[in-house]
């Protein structure tokens, strides 16, 4: 009785609003439902076939760009976060005791800050920074002032710069979080390991690659998976920052955007939106399993 009384509400709510919609999405993916009509027909796997020659050019660019973000974002963020975390925790002196650089506490506070800002606010701030110089864009105006080349139409208006620009914002907002995360993992590594290495004359670079990184492997692996999920979520930035929510000329379409536009935008095809969602779901599943397998190593005890 007691158990049931405590479970009925949370489980009920969860089944109704999370599990049911997911099951329905699989069902809708097999239909030609626009989402706004009352009737629909089951069309088998047509959506899954048709999405690959989608005339709106959302799907293939979407998968390509999401794939690029998925490859690039975790590598950059983890490399930078590890470097910063190492500097702030062990990189202080090359002789004597183990300590971080001066001002480590301050850096940790500052770097983490973007993490607490809402993505919508980050998007608006960076959209302003990326604007063309004629409308007061910070970055382009700065480049103009020192005489370097800059994009006339702003960073978000250039087909070659829009995607790197979006990735840069994602990096900007997430490095601090992983720095703090890796820091706490590093704090768990016993000091005497470092001291011994130092006495033996290991340089900081060597200390990092031969001691810190192997001992931190499990945290890196976790971070990798979470960053993968963030990479798939890049849609909010694209939605708010880029022209026509994926432009210019489809050069920043992401897969979340394709789903959103089919379901709620001008796509008007809930069946297609759900089918892309199902493909995304399977891709996430496969990626998680594969990356867990590939990065699996023997656990180092300390």
């Amino acid at each position: 009785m007691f158990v049931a009384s405590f479970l009925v509400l949370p489980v009920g709510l969860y089944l109704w609003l999370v599990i049911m919609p997911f099951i329905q999405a699989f069902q809708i993916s097999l239909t030609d439902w626009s989402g706004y009509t009352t009737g629909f027909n089951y069309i088998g796997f047509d959506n899954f076939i048709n999405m690959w020659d989608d005339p709106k050019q959302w799907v293939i660019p979407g998968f390509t760009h999401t794939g690029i973000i998925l490859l690039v974002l975790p590598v950059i963020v983890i490399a930078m976060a590890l470097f910063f975390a190492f500097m702030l925790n062990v990189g202080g002196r090359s002789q004597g005791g183990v300590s971080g650089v001066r001002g480590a506490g301050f850096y940790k506070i500052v770097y983490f800050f973007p993490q607490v800002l809402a993505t919508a606010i980050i998007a608006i701030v960076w959209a302003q920074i990326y604007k063309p110089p004629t409308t007061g864009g910070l970055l382009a105006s700065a480049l103009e002032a020192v005489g370097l080349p800059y994009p006339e139409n702003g960073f978000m208006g250039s087909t070659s710069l829009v995607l790197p620009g979006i990735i840069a914002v994602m990096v900007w907002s997430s490095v601090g979080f992983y720095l703090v995360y890796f820091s706490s993992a590093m704090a768990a590594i016993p000091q005497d390991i470092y001291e011994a290495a130092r006495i033996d004359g290991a340089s900081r670079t060597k200390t990092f690659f031969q001691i810190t990184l192997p001992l931190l492997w499990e945290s890196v692996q976790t971070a990798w998976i979470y960053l993968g999920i963030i990479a798939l979520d890049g849609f909010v930035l694209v939605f708010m920052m880029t022209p026509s929510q994926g432009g210019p000329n489809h050069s920043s379409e992401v897969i979340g955007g394709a789903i959103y536009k089919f379901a709620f935008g001008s796509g008007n095809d809930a069946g297609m939106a759900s089918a892309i969602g199902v493909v995304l779901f399977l891709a996430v599943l496969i990626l998680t399993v594969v990356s867990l397998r590939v990065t699996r190593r023997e656990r180092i005890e300390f």
Partner: protein
Amino acid sequence: MTTAQLPPKTEKATPSRKPADDQESGKVLNVFSHGFLILWAAMVILPVVWVMINSFRASGDIKSDPFGIPLEAHWENFAGAWVEANLGQYFLNTVIVLLMSVTGTMLLGAMAAYVLARYDFPGNRFFFMMFVAGMMFPVFLALFPLYKTMDNVGLKDTHVGLAIVYIAYSLPFTVFFLTAFFRSLPNGVAEAAMIDGAGHYRLFWQVMLPMAKPGLISITIFNVIGQWNQFLLPLVLMNRNKDGQVLSVGLASLTSEAGKQVDTGVLFAGMALAMLPVLIAYILFQRQIQAGMTAGALK
């Protein structure tokens, strides 16, 4: 003081390398890495400072000279953002939704996690796995059916509806995290309370919840920030109720097509207003927030 000090399981830390050589490279590395640390700190701080400064400037000034400092404070930017651009209303809406959703998430999450962690009953493992599985689903997949569900029961475009959805989507992680936490609590105290005549409900409210306080605080911070950050759910589920919109989407509408006429100075004031409470809360509680979010997100 030799290699013998190394615990046997670590990789070999090769000795060698002349110390003088090392010091030299150490210095170069020092300058380089300090430079990089300072550069990144500036990259984080500058945009925030830039927003704060420009929030006091007139629209035309910002466009003609984005680096300038305000010659006179244009306080009307803030009034414009708060009243005319409706940010005051959006802010209030966000607070209303969060009050409901965070309370609900914590209450339902703690209840479910508690029985899953400390009671043996058929289906225990099944329910736990069901919640955990929810962490893997991309929200995008459920967005359209969710929209239809909320529409059918008339909760679309309402604050209560939005709060309920936030709760449902925050449950997987909250339950996962708190189950681990409740499991770690000592059994002795619970047994003692039972012997003293406390019922199951009393045990939960008066003994277990207070004991779980550190875990509850972590996950509350995590949920507050996560739900304050929500963009996609309110964008879709509040799209017909413009006045009831939350802050993140409301701000976005300032920059979208419909809001093109919005004054740049007002936009900056709006950004500053949206950032300020977060910035202050962060500076005051940065230690707890960092701990709460890293513990919350990556357990």
